[in-house]
């Protein structure tokens, strides 16, 4: 690793962000709307990637962190009339507390047990959102009024019901998280996580408190996913139990593995790919799920390490 490759890496990421910014002006309304969703969901995927790709921990319960952000932001906004910034912060706080508690417990297990334990904690969270139906309205959910989803900065009013504003907010969030993740994985912390993934026992005998490092990874991952959830709720104005279900734990796993685990841009690629494959297939036929399934098998046969993962392995070794 030298100065030249570092510059190349940062240039690549800034170029991607610039391209996305340009797309905000050039894309037709429909696709811009789709991309707003993709960008926020890609943040979710990036949070998941930190744990799966870089730390090697496969969780089947990340929907609970996304939903913690979603409800953490949506409930105060809806019931207590909080402003947007405060609600967003509340979503982040909810995600970090949940991640700390769940991590402290779940990290006592490894491998498949970890998968099941995280899945069960997520199931508890999901059932809890259904149980407190007076506040959450369960599956039906809450619609957040457009009037509440605005921020006034002096004379300027940013309304999240406006598609153009929505896209820009999504892009800002995505860019911030992308660059933070890039910095993290190239910092000592990132190297530590990679070592734990490769040989945790050896890391212990090299002086690393691996439990603390893994807990840190879970909390950072949880906060990022909660940020995605809070943003999603505030941007699209809907909060519902569906986002806490197992489906939203499988989706980020899929996005990360398809895009390329342990790559910084893989989550974006995977999310965009899946969203568009579903979009395209459902336009073709009502049996679109079958096409999606076939696409998944096709991708995994030809890109066994995910799209960017295989690209990195075969051609661009310097890709972070």
């Amino acid at each position, binding site marked *: 690793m030298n100065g030249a490759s570092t510059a190349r890496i940062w240039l690549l990421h800034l170029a991607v962000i610039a391209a996305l910014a340009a797309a905000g002006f050039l894309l037709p309304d429909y696709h811009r709307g789709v991309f707003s969703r993709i960008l926020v969901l890609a943040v979710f995927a990036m949070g998941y990637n930190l744990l799966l790709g870089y730390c090697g921990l496969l969780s089947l319960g990340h929907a609970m962190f996304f939903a913690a952000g979603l409800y953490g932001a949506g409930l105060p906004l809806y019931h207590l009339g909080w402003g947007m910034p405060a609600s967003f912060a509340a979503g982040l706080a909810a995600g970090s507390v949940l991640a700390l508690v769940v991590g402290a417990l779940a990290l006592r297990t490894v491998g498949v047990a970890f998968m099941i334990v995280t899945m069960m904690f997520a199931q508890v969270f999901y059932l809890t959102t259904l149980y407190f139906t007076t506040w959450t309205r369960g599956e039906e959910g809450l619609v957040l009024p457009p009037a509440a989803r605005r921020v006034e900065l002096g004379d300027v009013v940013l309304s999240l019901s406006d598609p153009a504003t929505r896209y820009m907010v999504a892009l800002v969030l995505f860019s911030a998280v992308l660059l933070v993740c890039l910095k993290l994985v190239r910092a000592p912390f990132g190297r530590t996580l990679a070592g734990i993934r490769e040989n945790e026992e050896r890391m212990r005998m090299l002086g690393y408190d691996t439990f603390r490092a893994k807990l840190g990874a879970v909390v950072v991952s949880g906060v990022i996913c909660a940020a995605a959830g809070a943003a999603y709720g505030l941007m699209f104005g809907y909060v519902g139990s569906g986002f806490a279900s197992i489906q939203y734990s499988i989706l980020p796993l899929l996005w990360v593995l398809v895009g390329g685990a342990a790559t910084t841009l893989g989550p974006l690629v995977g999310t965009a790919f899946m969203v568009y494959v579903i979009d395209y297939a459902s336009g073709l036929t009502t049996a679109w799920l*079958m096409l999606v399934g076939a696409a998944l098998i096709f991708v995994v046969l030809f890109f066994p390490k995910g799209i960017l993962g295989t690209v990195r392995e075969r051609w661009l070794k310097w890709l972070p």
Partner: protein
Amino acid sequence: MGFGPLLLLALLEGLVTAALLALMALGLSLVFGVMRVVNVAHGEFFMLGAVLAWVVSTAFAGHPAIGFIAALLVAPLAVGAVAYLAERLVLKRLNYDPEATIVATIGLLYIIQQLALTVYGADARPVQPPFNIRIQLPWFGYSGYKLFVIAAAILLLLGAWFVLARTRAGLVMRATQYDAETAQAFGIPVGRVYAYVFALGAMLAALAAVLIVPVSQAHYLMGRDPLLLSFVVVIIGGLGSLRGTVVAALLIGLSDGIISTLFFSPTLAKILATLLVALVLVFRPQGLFGTAAR
């Protein structure tokens, strides 16, 4: 009904659930134990078994028992064939890489689920039980067929234990599970073992489905809950332990029966039960009968 008889009813219902869970979890445990892969489509093999059971049994006019027996023979074999094909065409090419297998089996899940939706439809359809005897207990009448399901499951599990513990085929499977490389060095065709184990796992799930479908209904989404539950059973029971799988299936099946029969707010009960199971795993990660890591 007093509390005692209600409890008995709950236990009987729980035993039925436990019977199915044990069969399904056994299939999953074999696949995961021998091949070390997570088959996310396991629930869809279950659903496919149920749907095929409906197709076969409605094709036979006359006494429902004939259709049922036909379904019992045809459905597992057909599902096993599907699984065998999937293994040879896809999983083998991926070299059983754990993460790639997850993606591939999710794709398989989507394909099978959509196929069922397109061909079979979104409706839940009942299947006639082979016989309609009601056992009259002092407090309530209970379906004789459900008792048959419990008995059948016990027989099948005993058969599975016999095959695994006492036959050559079982020895080959256990050897491959223990150490695939060494097994191969001893001339065991590991690739073919994997294909048959994958098919066998799917067949067990389909068998469980054919048994249960006369008392529930065949629906294209019915694979999801059993998938999650059988995973939990496999891990709680401890990987590689048939006894553990059965005990865990009993525990989870019975508590599920008690919760759904006795509790008016099943959601809160489910929350507490799930939390309890999760905490058991947290403080005893090897499950009930698995071997603890040092």
